[in-house]
């Protein structure tokens, strides 16, 4: 099982902040595509160029390997401070 988190504007756009994917193993790009296939209306939001991704709380790109037990997050550019 892979835990997937969404934050800030993206969380509001997708209408949820957390979900799980059972039996997923592949790249982070594959995971994003899986989510877009399951939820076609998410594609425009998840594939925006400025969306950042993290695996196990470290920034990652689409080639990062994801497997059972990992925590994946998607979020817009940060605006703290």
């Amino acid at each position, binding site marked *: 099982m892979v835990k997937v988190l969404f934050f800030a504007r993206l969380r509001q756009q997708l209408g949820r902040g957390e979900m799980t994917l059972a039996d997923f193993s592949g790249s982070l790009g594959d995971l994003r595509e899986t989510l877009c296939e399951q939820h076609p209306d998410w594609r425009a939001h998840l594939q925006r160029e*400025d969306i950042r991704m993290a695996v196990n709380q470290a920034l990652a790109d689409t080639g990062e390997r994801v497997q059972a037990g990992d925590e994946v997050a998607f979020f817009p*550019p940060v605006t703290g401070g």
Partner: protein
Amino acid sequence: MNAVDRIAVCETPLDVAGEYAALQGSSGDGACALFVGSVRDFNAGRDVCGLALEHYPGMTEKSLQGIIVDARSRWPLGRVAIVHRVGPMQINDEIVFIGVTSPHRQAAFAACQYMMDRLKTEAPFWKRETVSDQSGNTSQRWIEARASDAEEMDKWSAG
């Protein structure tokens, strides 16, 4: 975490005087530089009534720790503190406190600015403002990242 590093994400008001006292009190360093960021009453042409800050628990602390580690690799630092508030806030409330001590003022100034620039572009925090129009109607909007923050960060890479 280094024993003299302080990293905190809190939902309560920042105790700036207390943070400074803890930072400077027993460091033995001659220089202490501080930055305090507060909620301002305007942004992007609109009156701001308040804001709320969201973060990514766990990743936030790791990100801040990485920033401190990198700052320590660049300058001789004594004590370092990064404290960031999350949740709802009012105008003038302090959002972030960054403080460093060092034997040298140049290092303290530079490290403080470097850590703030890194935080603004990397640490997973997001602001949502409550803004009002001329009729006094309020609405909420997520703040967009500013290109100028990324440009400030790029200067450190170039240097």
